[in-house]
């Protein structure tokens, strides 16, 4: 098949569809209790050098308690995709990231990420392979579909494609140029949801971001949930199950698990908490102090929440989006 152009970026997580199928074949379809702590889940499934990603992102329905635990356990040489704000900033500041399939890492309203700049400009992050947000999601979608690639017209003609690992071909039906995006399977995915049962059946409220795609494009899936619900509730509303249990390896009960980010209909974002990272992360020392205070300095999520305090959490709840 004639390739018109190939991005020069490294394919840092090559995909073999039959190998992924063989992995999925081995995953249990039995309903077994998968509830465990952040510490257990990260210890059991995240390893040095693994290819890992988080959904949705930093300030919105983000598995922050899991992301902090990754830092606490110092999992290193991580290969990471995304699309991140606070969560990937923490990993970058902690020096855990070796390679990036990068789409966007920044502080949104608050601008570029000093942690990203330090990590990349110092050479600590060895490789940045570029993709658009659409492209990285379609790469996961390809894996979720069980096909080796998906076509898109994104990235054509740009350096984004030149620094990616995409390929340009001509459509055999119409002769049009399209970019082919190689399927992406993560070694580990971290996703935060509103509700899950003990087996890992998950429900999400509001936008689904790319939860459905990422959950189907990973070998290990750690889900954290605001609430653990009885399976009867899942079976009553099977049309709300965005992530079925057989995709899930661990279920972590993490109330306020997205803090300082928001969780639609449950709590709004903690602006002061976000700004604290924005300010402290301006210097390496400040970032280290933040990690010491909120991660190394606490045993786990419970202690983190205690440190934040009920008053602040209550204020976040007051700021929640409501159905109206």
């Amino acid at each position, binding site marked *: 098949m004639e390739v018109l152009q190939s991005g020069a970026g490294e394919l840092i997580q090559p995909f073999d569809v039959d190998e992924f199928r063989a992995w999925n074949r081995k995953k249990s379809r039995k309903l077994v209790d998968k509830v465990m702590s952040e510490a257990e889940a990260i210890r059991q499934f995240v390893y040095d050098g693994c290819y890992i990603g988080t959904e949705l992102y930093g300030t919105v329905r983000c598995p922050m308690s899991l992301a902090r635990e990754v830092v606490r356990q110092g999992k290193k040489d991580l290969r990471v995709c995304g699309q991140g704000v606070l969560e990937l900033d923490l990993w970058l500041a902690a020096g855990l990231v070796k390679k990036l399939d990068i789409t966007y890492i920044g502080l949104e*309203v608050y601008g570029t990420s000093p942690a990203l700049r330090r990590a990349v400009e110092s050479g600590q992050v060895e490789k940045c392979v570029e993709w*658009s947000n659409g492209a990285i999601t379609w790469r996961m979608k390809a894996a979720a579909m069980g096909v080796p690639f998906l076509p898109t017209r994104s990235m054509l003609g740009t350096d984004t494609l030149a620094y990616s690992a995409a390929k340009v071909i001509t459509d055999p039906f119409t002769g049009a140029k399209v970019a082919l995006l190689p399927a992406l399977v993560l070694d580990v995915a971290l996703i935060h949801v509103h509700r899950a049962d003990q087996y890992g059946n998950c429900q999400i409220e509001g936008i689904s971001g790319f939860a459905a795609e990422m959950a189907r494009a990973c070998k290990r899936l750690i889900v954290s949930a605001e609430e653990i619900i009885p399976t009867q509730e899942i079976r009553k509303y099977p049309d709300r199950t965005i992530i079925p249990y057989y995709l899930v390896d661990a279920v972590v009960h993490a109330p306020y698990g997205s803090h300082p980010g928001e969780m639609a209909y449950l709590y709004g974002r903690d602006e002061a908490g976000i700004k604290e990272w924005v300010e402290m992360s301006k210097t390496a020392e400040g970032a280290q102090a933040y990690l010491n205070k909120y991660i190394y300095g606490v045993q786990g999520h419970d202690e983190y929440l205690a440190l934040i305090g009920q008053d602040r959490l209550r204020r976040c709840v007051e700021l929640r989006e409501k159905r109206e």
Partner: protein
Amino acid sequence: MVEQTYSRTELMICVAARLFEDGATCFIGTGIPMLAAMLASRTTAPNLVPVFEFGGTGAIMEELPRAVGEARTWHKGISALGICDTMENAQRGFIDYGFLGGAQIDPYGNLNSIVIGDHDHPKARLPGSGGGNDVGSHCWKTVAIMQHDVRRFVPRVDCITTPGFLSGPGAREAAGLPKDTGPAYVVSTLALMDYDAATCRMRLKATHPGVSVDEVIANTGFELLLPAQVEVNPPPSVEELRLLREEIDPEKLYI
């Protein structure tokens, strides 16, 4: 009447807001585009359909979103789905306008948000494409909102992150990008620019009040085309400023 005072950011937001077509679907990026969209929906474009990257479409923007995924992006919205739905809507031709920013822009409207300097050993690592490349590839028309200075308006961007007209006439189609798409306007802190149809090069359309054509040219790092007649953008109206200050950004996040 009283002489109204306003900041250049406030003016930029107003000029951007006036570009929103009523009843159009508009892909809204983080920051100034959000304020402009909110202002437009309260003034000239009440039927504006805001589209946010991670799944929110048709929101009623009562409060300023601070992120493209937060609940305010689908508040009382038409649909709250996922990023694939949004991006596929764009790729399928359902998104009329895309509003975005960048660190650098060139005469053909190509935007850079990846690196300053060499990609593998950058002087400055920027956030990356995000949804920018998708928006610039698939939306029918794109509007860039930029600070105006010679470091940002450059002859060649260090890294074409989001496609403008690429190398000029016909280049988008030749690359395989959707037919009849491309940059429409640039709103800067100094002026409003459009593009010359024949050459696809950026052209000064209207200066902001109190800004001279020479000042715009002096702050542009490439030859900016000049029309026979350079217009002057109307200053923010009393109502526009009231909306911005009292309803849209009362916490002064941007203004």
